[in-house]
C-alpha cells in the first residue's frame, strides 16, 4: 500500500503541498481532485522522487521512499505516468514501449508487448510510427502502455483526460478500471475532470491550495453538492 504522511513540498517561497496525508489502498483507484494549482501534479512528482519534500514521508508498504531517486521507482513497482506529453516524441511507438520494459519491477517477468497491443490495438497498427505523429488519445494510450511494460503494482496517473475528447477519456478510464479489477493494480489518479475520475474511483481526495479539504468514498464525494460546487466545478 502507498501512503503519504504530512508531506510538505515547497518551490522556493511557494508552498505547493502543505502537510498532505493520504492513502492509496491496494487494488483500488484513489482519485486526487482539485483545481489548477491545488498541488496535484506536485503530489505525484514528490511521490516519485522528482521533487524532494521538505517534510513528511512517502511510504510504500511501510518503507520510506522520500529519499529514493526517481530512477528506482519502476523497480519498486511504482510507475509514474506523466501527462500525455510524456511520450518521447522522437522515438517510435515500439521503442517507447521497449524502453518502458527495460527497468521493470524487481522479480517480475518481462511483459509481452502483445499484451499492451491487446489493450490498445491502435498502438499495434502504429508500432513503427514515430510517437510525434500520434493523436492526443493515442499518446495517452502509449504512456499508459509504456508504464504497464514495467509490470507495476502501483500506477501514478497524471491527468490522463487532459486535452482529450470525452469519448476517449471514457474509453481510457474504463480500460483503467478493468486493469484494476483484473490485475489488482493500485491506482493513484490525479484529475481536474472530477466527474469522470470519480466515476471509476473507489475513493476520492480533494486538494485545495496544497491541503486535503475532503476525502472519502467516491460516491459520497460525487453526491456532496456543496463540495462539488466549492472545489470540483460540476
Amino acid at each position, binding site marked *: 500500500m502507498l501512503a503519504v504522511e504530512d508531506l510538505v513540498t515547497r518551490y522556493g517561497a511557494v508552498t505547493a503541498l502543505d502537510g498532505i496525508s493520504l492513502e492509496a489502498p491496494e487494488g483500488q483507484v484513489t482519485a486526487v481532485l482539485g483545481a489548477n494549482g491545488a498541488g496535484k501534479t506536485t503530489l505525484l512528482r514528490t511521490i*516519485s522522487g*522528482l521533487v524532494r519534500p521538505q517534510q513528511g514521508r512517502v511510504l510504500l508498504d511501510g518503507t520510506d521512499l522520500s529519499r529514493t*531517486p*526517481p*530512477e*528506482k*521507482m*519502476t*523497480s519498486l513497482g511504482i*510507475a*509514474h505516468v*506523466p501527462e500525455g506529453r*510524456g*511520450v*518521447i*516524441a*522522437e*522515438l517510435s511507438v515500439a*521503442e517507447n514501449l*521497449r*524502453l*518502458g520494459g*527495460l*527497468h*521493470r519491477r524487481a522479480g517480475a517477468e518481462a511483459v509481452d508487448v502483445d499484451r499492451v497491443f491487446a489493450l490498445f490495438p491502435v498502438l499495434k497498427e502504429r508500432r513503427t510510427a*514515430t510517437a*510525434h505523429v500520434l493523436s492526443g488519445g493515442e499518446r495517452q494510450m502509449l504512456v499508459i502502455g*509504456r508504464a504497464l511494460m*514495467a509490470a507495476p503494482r502501483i500506477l501514478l496517473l497524471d491527468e490522463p483526460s487532459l486535452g482529450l475528447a470525452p469519448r476517449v477519456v471514457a474509453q481510457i478510464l474504463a480500460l483503467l478500471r478493468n486493469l484494476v479489477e483484473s490485475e489488482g493494480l493500485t491506482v493513484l489518479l490525479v484529475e481536474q475532470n472530477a466527474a469522470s475520475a470519480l466515476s471509476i474511483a473507489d475513493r476520492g481526495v480533494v486538494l485545495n491550495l496544497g491541503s486535503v479539504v475532503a476525502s472519502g468514498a467516491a460516491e459520497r464525494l460525487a453526491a456532496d453538492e456543496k463540495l462539488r460546487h466549492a472545489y470540483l466545478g460540476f
Partner: protein
Amino acid sequence: MQQFFTTLLAGLTLGAVYAAFALALCLIWRSTRVVNFAQAPMAMVTTYVALEVIDHTGSYWFGFAVALLAGLVLGAVVERGLVRFVEGKSDLNVVILTLGLFVVLHSLAAIVFGQDYKSFPAPFGLRGLHVAGHDIAITGFGIFTLIAVAVVFGLLVALFRFTDLGLKMRASAFSPEVARLLGVRVGKMLTLGWALAAVVGSLAGLLVAGGNLVFPQFMDSVVVYGFVAAVLGGLDSPAGSVVGGLVLGLALSFVSGYAASDLVPITALGILVLVLLVRPGGLFSHVAERRV
C-alpha cells in the same frame, strides 16, 4: 581523368576525417544538446598521449588503443567534472565553458608536451598505391582512414538502433525526465555520451595526425571544417555528419584541385552560409521540425 580521381580520392579521405570529427560533435549534441567547442583540443591531448605511448613502446597500435581509451576517460571526466555543473542552466554557460576548456587544454598541452612540432607515425604507407601500372592517389593510410570512419559509423548506428543502451541514451537525450521515470539513470547516459564522443574525437585526432606533424594547434584547422560538416549534415543525425563530412571534403578537394587552394576556406564559409540560409537544421534534419 587522372586528376579527377586524384582529387576525388583526396577529397574522400579528407572528408572521412571531417566526418569523424562531426560525428563526435553530433554524439554530444544528441546526448546533451551541447556543442562541444573543446572537441579539437581534447582530441589533440589524446593524440599526444598516443605519441608518448608510441615513443616509449614502439607500437603504433598500442598507442592507438591507449589514445581511444584516454578519450573515453577524458570525455567522462569533462562531463562529470565540468559540464555537469552548468547543465540545465543557460545554454550560453556551457558554450563559454567549452570555449574556456579549449584555451586551457591548448595551454596545458604546450606546457606538458612543449610547443615543438613532433612527427607522428602512420601504420600504413603514405605513398600512393601502385596498381596495374597506374599510380592511384589513395594511400594505405587513406584507405585505413575511410575504413576506420565507416566502422565507427556502423558501430554507432548499431548502438543507437539495436541496443538497449543506445535506446536509453537516446531517451535520456530527448526527454531526461521521462527517461528517469522509466528507470533510466540519465546522468550515467550523459557521461557515456560524452565519453563515446571523445573516443570518436580521439580517432579523428589520430587520423589527422597520422604521417603528419603534431603540435598543440594541429587540430585547429579541422575544427572549422568539422563544424561546417556537422552543420551541413544537421547536428542531430550521425548519418548527416558522415555525409556532411564527405560532401565537404569532396567540395573542398575539388575547389583546391581545379581552382585554387586559397579558395578553400571561403568555399567552406560559402557552404556554411548557404546551408544555414536554405536548410538551417542541416540536410538531414527532421527532428527540429517535429518539436512542438
